[in-house]
């Protein structure tokens, strides 16, 4: 892939490690560069910069490098690599706000497992990235700390909820960033910003330390410029965590070593394209899709066809219910997950107990700190779970969710990969959809089914629209097939971008 970006902030992990060893670049220099750019940046990508901590971590890497003379790649595959962490993941001693007034000054007493693993692998935490409050939103306009602007088109949204992480990577403020995805919150901003964004299989990466939005849907995943860099991050974070009962018992992934399987067209490895069956869901290519987006996706499908993959039409008949199911299940779980924010043990407390006339008044003073979208979802979720309505809404939604998953189970008997757009459109202007929540919710129509079914899925840049806004291709694989998913994606990225 042509290295169009000359600054090391845009280099691959492989190239960075080589530079470290060649001593043409030091870990401290790299981190300083990123911090400098981050401070200058008007994107609003970061809520908190960890200047002191980052330089300390970079310095430690530098010392180790001086002593050993080499980068310990096996032990620390992310040695000296600057990383942004979505501010929905806890970091011990570092403010974690969830982009909410509720947690404006909250400093967690522990670090999320996924983040711990990245740090143990040598990553340098540049800062906590901006997001839609508590992960609720598709445009990153719902942050109490200001919106995130599109990295190449000021005034356009970056997408959400992990807008800060996507923009930070695209703008070279860090090499990798972590996001979270409940209904598309990694893949959508990745698509809008033109970077790689991956949501692994549900259970692949521990949720311990991820401030819960919808427990049965949330997953942590990486943003990167390059698929092979994201692969390293997934390998590092994956694996059973005894602190998360929903984390899978399967062994850690080995995406980094298998990511080149399809890319070597000169064939030393060479997985066989003719054995790859790609499903195109017939329900996904009906009206509402922007023409530029459709063209880009069809172009990508043509590429796979040329390679020798088999294109198969599949049917996912319950697609039409997916958004409704999501906006019942997710908001129901969220209404319960957010009940702990009451100002009693941590977080903002605008009114002390002695000032409150009664418990209701006290609760009102803290709970009113939530933003409008968060309040909307809590109320919806409370309603959907309430006596007399739970059967019709929450229970029914769970039953239909199973149907959505069954659609995919059946499809994956016939295919290995499913391709679709990530979003019906490219990024939109700030404020354009803000007053119409339902319109906003429809951004997620393609991404939601993978969350409902727990499947690994990713956004891969595959073109630009007539305004130069990036278009992402959505790839979905069968459960726990991250190695396959990423190797196919990398092959496309190497040739096509």
């Amino acid at each position, binding site marked *: 892939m042509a290295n169009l970006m000359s600054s090391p902030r845009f280099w691959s992990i492989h190239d960075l490690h080589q530079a470290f060893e060649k001593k043409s670049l030091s870990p401290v220099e790299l981190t300083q560069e990123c911090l400098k750019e981050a401070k200058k940046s008007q994107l609003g990508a970061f809520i908190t910069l960890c200047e002191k901590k980052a330089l300390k971590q970079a310095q430690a890497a530098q010392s180790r490098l001086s002593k050993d003379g080499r980068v310990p790649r096996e032990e620390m595959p992310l040695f000296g690599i600057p990383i942004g962490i979505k501010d929905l*993941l*806890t970091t011990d001693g570092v403010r*974690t706000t*969830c982009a909410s007034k509720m*947690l404006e000054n*909250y400093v*967690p*007493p*522990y670090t*999320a497992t996924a983040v711990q693993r990245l740090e143990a692998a040598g990553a340098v935490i540049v800062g906590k990235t901006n997001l839609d409050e508590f992960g609720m939103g598709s445009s990153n306009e719902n942050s109490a700390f200001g919106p995130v602007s599109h990295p190449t088109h000021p005034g356009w949204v970056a997408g959400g909820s992990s807008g800060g992480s996507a923009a930070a990577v695209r703008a070279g403020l860090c090499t990798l960033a972590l996001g979270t995805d409940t209904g598309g919150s990694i893949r959508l901003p990745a698509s809008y910003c033109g970077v790689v964004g991956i949501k692994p299989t549900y259970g692949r990466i521990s*949720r*311990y*330390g*991820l*401030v*819960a939005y*919808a*427990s*049965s849907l949330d997953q942590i995943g990486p943003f990167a410029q390059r698929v092979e860099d994201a692969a390293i991050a997934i390998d590092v974070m994956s694996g059973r965590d*005894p*602190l*998360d*009962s*929903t984390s899978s018992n399967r062994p850690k992934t080995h995406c980094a070593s298998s990511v080149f399987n399809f890319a070597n067209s000169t064939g030393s490895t060479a997985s066989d394209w003719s054995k790859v069956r790609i499903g195109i869901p017939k329900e996904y290519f009906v009206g509402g899709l922007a023409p530029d987006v459709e063209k880009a996706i069809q172009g990508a499908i043509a590429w796979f066809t040329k390679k020798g993959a088999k294109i198969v039409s599949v049917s996912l008949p319950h697609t039409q219910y997916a958004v409704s199911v999501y906006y019942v299940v997710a908001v*129901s*779980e969220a*209404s*319960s997950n*957010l*009940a*702990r*924010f*009451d100002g*009693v*043990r*941590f977080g903002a407390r605008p009114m002390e*107990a*002695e000032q409150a006339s009664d*418990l209701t008044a006290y*609760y009102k003073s803290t709970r009113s700190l939530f933003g409008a979208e968060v309040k909307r979802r809590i109320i919806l979720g*409370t309603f959907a*779970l*309430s*006596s007399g309505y*739970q059967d019709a809404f*929450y229970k029914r939604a769970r039953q239909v969710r199973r149907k959505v998953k069954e659609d995919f189970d059946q499809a994956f008997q016939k295919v290995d990969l499913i391709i679709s757009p990530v979003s019906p459109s490219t990024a939109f202007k700030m404020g354009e959809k803000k007053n119409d929540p339902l319109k906003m919710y429809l951004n997620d129509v393609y991404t939601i089914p993978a969350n409902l079914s727990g499947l690994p899925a990713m956004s891969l840049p595959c073109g630009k629209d007539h305004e130069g806004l990036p278009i992402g291709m959505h790839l979905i694989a069968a459960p726990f097939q991250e190695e396959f998913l990423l190797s196919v994606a990398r092959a496309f990225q190497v040739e096509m971008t």
Partner: protein
Amino acid sequence: MYREFETVIGLEVHCQLATQTKIFCGCPSKMSDGRSVAHIEVNSNTCPICAGHPGTLPVMNEKVVQYAVMAGLATHCQIRPESILARKNYFYPDLPKGYQISQYEQPICESGWLDIRTSQGEKRIRIHRIHMEEDAGKSIHRSGFSVVNLNRAGVPLIEIVSEPDIRSPEEAGAYLRSLHGLVTHLGICDGNMEEGNFRCDVNISVRTLDEAKAGRFGTRAEIKNVNSFRFVEKAIEYEIHRQVGLIRSGGKVVQETRSYDSAKNVTLSLRTKEEAQDYRYFPDPDLIPIQLNSQWIEQIRSALPELPEQLKNRLMSDWGLSLYDADAIISSKALFQFFEKVMQQSGLQITGAGPGESGREFAKPVANWLTGEVSRLLNEEGIEIDQSNLTPEHLADLVTLIQKQILSSTGAKQVLSIIWKTGEQVETVVEREGLKQVSEAGALSELISKTLAAFPNQVSEYRAGKEKLLGFFVGKVMKESGGKANPALLNELFKKALSEENS
């Protein structure tokens, strides 16, 4: 009580499980020195998980599942092969997550029973379900505000819910005592009611006999958190009067939550059910369903310690104890273990097919002492037997001395009251207080002759037929000897002496 009304009672008992750690995190569920977590420094026994910090997740403590299954097996419940944990959502400052993780639609145990005995005979009380849940923190209400201590948040509980089969305060007391004995015998609960290990909510309604025949129930009130058997009985008594009084005066019983005020012996309304909470129960997505295979359940079953019923039967068949005595002794694990140790001390065996006669003869007085004088002293001080100064050696010695006729029962009572305070050895006290009974015929014969010589008229009257004068003579010698003479022996000797022609 009221002949035209029937009382219908269901009991919900919350038992704190005696596991090492809390139900969903690694915090201790009780201190290593045995102190309850309620007694250590406020808010010092928490972690991000039980304090409900953002991003934390619960992880199931397997021991809790084991203990819950033990409780279920001991009460003849069906154990569900798959059960789920559910969130019970409500806001309260001592509930860190804003929801309690409990069980709703698929509890771990269902449909069991407990047999109880009252003055009316035996009765079976059905158990509806047993489920696991976490305890909340503790709220302490001050003037104008309240404070919260989270040390207890996350301590594991099982909730045992009976069917509304109970019909009287006495039955309620018997059920609770049986259940308490059961969980303490199993070792799954410490059963200390003052510490809140074993808490009871009472659901009570009344109905006319016609309503009973028609299968209709009256409106029930719930009395929450009653923490002694006696208080449960008294609260029920009061509540029956209150409800019947209401109905008779034309009023209606309101479905509500009440509390019991032990000082005034009344129940008071806390909140009415109109304001009742909708808990919005749903399966907790952070926890996977609990799946038990029958092998594991059978392992638990075979490892169960002897249950109170079995122990009781053993006491009766091996040691010949009466039903009453056996019941009383198994009512407390400590008391039962004490009894066993006393029998061990005595060295008497249960030989061959049945106990040796002397084994039974020893067991009976031991049981009498334990259920009589010892229990009286324990209740006076409100302590358990292992907190007293009395040791199994003490009781074994006492009973041995009585059987050897070295101590009279009055003398033994005296020794006991001294040992109770000082814990000294029985021999030491007997010697020092000079309580040895005079039981040798030879030692007494002089006194007997002296007495008969001193009262010739009474001797003639006796011989003429006034046989109850025997007591007169015996009494005289008892007085003379300062109570140390063996009255039974005196009886014998006097009879003998008085029936001889020459005195």
